[in-house]
């Protein structure tokens, strides 16, 4: 290190900012250089004297009022800063108002809410996540006032279990739909299922039981047709038919024995025909029929093969009429000789008709009802098959006769004629028309009977009251 380099590093040496190596080199140079050594000593003295003067005698104390003024200013500044922060902080509403996206978002939410409310009010069944259910998916059950037959046992209807098995698969009940939709959205499965249940329960359809829907029992098919028009008086057609049959039986309590004595009674095949025997249109109707419901027209399809017309099927003219029995219309006048041999009553099928027992009006109603279909068949044969061979009259003749009876308002005979037509030609293109006319005829029969009963009841009442008065006198 030379003197110039030492002069460059003099300040760092005096304030001790040299690295150890540089400091050692500087000290080594000072040992061999008296000039540099004297200069370093002179600077050290000057720095020492100046530092002693500045931190000693020359050091002044600041005035006390300076600190007070500074602290007052600091406090005032702090308090004003707090006030300013409080004043500048906008209120909740002001902050909401200043939020740029809030108003559009609020407007959109309001519109969405309004649309939702309008939809819900217009159709309460429509809830989010639930598709509107068409009304024809479920068949409205009849009002509870109408009497319902009990569920038929499986033995009575052997083909019904097949239909019952098919029905739950075809009828997608509300809980099943809820489960289906829940499966589609696993995240909110339980919520959607609950919502669907709530929606169904909150607006139940008349006569529709959710539990029945869920179990699939007593549920008409998904594609079930609405029930046939109900006649006046609040009774269904099967009720009417059943009443007609029972009254007829009461009017003719004895029937000729069709079966030879000693032979086992031939049970009428009460089960519906096999599935393949039904035309396509009737299959659909068949599917839609509830298992527990008895359709009288099923019996029309299930009538036994035509037998020889028997005049004994008609009640004997001398036989005492059963209570409640109506007189036969003139067109059903019994054939000659019908009263000659009062045949013993036919054995009713053992397990075929337990369902109809509640409807029977008398003790032997079950037996009579069991033979109801047979009587009607016989009646039809009497009316339609007169003069025909074993196969019965031709289609044209039968149709012509049925139409004539229908036009002449001979309702009972017309119903029988159309039933016979339906039995013999179930797949005919006019079968729906025949079925409709048969329904109309039965309804007309029931109307006439009701009117007559009412009239007879009034007359009997008047008579009894007159007799009562006479007795008193």
């Amino acid at each position, binding site marked *: 290190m030379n003197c110039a380099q030492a002069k460059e590093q*003099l*300040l*760092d040496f*005096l*304030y001790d*900012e040299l690295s150890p190596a540089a400091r050692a080199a500087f000290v080594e140079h000072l040992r061999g250089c008296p000039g540099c050594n004297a200069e370093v000593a*002179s*600077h050290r*003295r*000057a*720095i*020492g*004297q*100046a*530092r*002693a*003067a*500045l*931190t*000693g*005698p*020359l*050091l*002044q*104390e*600041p*005035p006390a*009022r*300076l*600190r007070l*003024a*500074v*602290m007052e*200013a*600091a*406090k005032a*500044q*702090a308090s004003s800063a*707090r006030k300013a922060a409080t004043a500048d902080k906008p209120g909740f509403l002001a902050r909401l108002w200043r939020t740029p996206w809030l108003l559009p978002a609020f407007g959109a939410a309001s519109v969405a809410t309004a649309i939702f409310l309008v939809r819900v009010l217009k159709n309460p069944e429509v809830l989010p996540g639930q598709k509107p259910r068409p009304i024809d998916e479920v068949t409205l059950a009849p009002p509870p006032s109408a009497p319902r037959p009990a569920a038929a046992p499986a033995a009575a209807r052997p083909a019904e279990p097949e239909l019952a098995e098919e029905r739950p698969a075809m009828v997608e009940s509300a809980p099943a739909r809820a489960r289906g939709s829940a499966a589609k959205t696993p995240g909110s499965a339980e919520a959607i299922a609950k919502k669907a249940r709530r929606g169904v329960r909150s607006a139940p359809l008349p006569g529709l039981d959710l539990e029945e829907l869920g179990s699939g029992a007593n549920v008409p098919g998904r594609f079930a047709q609405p029930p046939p028009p109900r006649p006046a008086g609040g009774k269904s057609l099967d009720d009417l038919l059943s009443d007609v049959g029972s009254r007829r039986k009461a009017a003719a309590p004895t029937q000729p024995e069709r079966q030879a004595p000693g032979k086992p009674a031939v049970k009428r095949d009460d089960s519906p025909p096999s599935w393949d025997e039904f035309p396509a249109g009737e299959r659909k109707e068949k599917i839609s029929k509830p298992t527990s419901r008895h359709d009288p027209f099923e019996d029309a399809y299930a009538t036994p093969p035509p037998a020889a017309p028997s005049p004994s099927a008609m009640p004997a003219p001398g036989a005492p009429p059963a209570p409640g029995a109506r007189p036969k219309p003139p067109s059903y006048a019994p054939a000659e000789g019908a009263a000659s041999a009062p045949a013993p009553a036919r054995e009713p099928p053992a397990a075929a008709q337990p369902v109809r027992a509640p409807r029977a009006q008398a003790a032997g109603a079950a037996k009579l009802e069991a033979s109801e279909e047979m009587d009607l068949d016989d009646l039809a044969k009497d009316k339609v098959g007169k003069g025909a061979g074993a196969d019965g009259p031709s289609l044209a003749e039968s149709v012509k006769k049925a139409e004539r009876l229908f036009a002449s308002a001979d309702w009972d005979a017309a119903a029988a004629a159309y039933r016979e037509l339906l039995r013999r030609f179930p797949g005919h293109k006019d079968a729906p028309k025949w079925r409709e006319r048969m329904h109309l005829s039965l309804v007309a029969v029931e109307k006439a009977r009701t009117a007559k009963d009412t009239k007879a009841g009034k007359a009997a009442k008047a008579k009894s009251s007159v007799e009562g008065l006479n007795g008193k006198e």
Partner: protein
Amino acid sequence: MARYQKGDVSAFAELVSRHEKRLWNFVRRFVPDSATAEDLVQEVFLRVVRSAADWRPSAKFSTWLLTIARNLCTDNARRGSVRRADSLEQTPGVAGDEPRGHRIERLAAPGGNAERAALDREIAVRVDAAVTDLPVEQREVFLMREVMDMSFAEIAAATSSSEPTVKSRMRYALERLRVALHELADENGPAAVESTP
């Protein structure tokens, strides 16, 4: 300072008591009277208060404080209202308009050797005079280093200068001081100067 940022006024009182003395002596070397120095020091602390929210712990507080004070002193000098602070006897201040000799006597400790006390007074007068005579750039560097005990790097940051520039200014300031004190030694003999601490 972090505590004061959270609203603790007592923390600011601690800061004031820690720095006001050195700040006062620094500012007092740049203004001709103590009233101006008082206003400037008060303004320095008020600026600290107002800018407390912007302070970051990365900056050393003393450096920040000296930067504010230096800028205020520079602005004050530019306004032309600053008279050259020549010497203690010419500088009006809190101590009153005392004659130079009285001030030195008051500053120098009276105890001990009377001859030694007189020499200390003379040294203080010469140092005070030498510092006051320094150019502003050299003076601020010298005072920051000797009074505020700042490193050359901190001084460079506070004065917005490079560190070699700061060292160069310090070297010139020391040379002037050394010459002034050397004259005193020449007048009273080297022994008197050597004996000073």
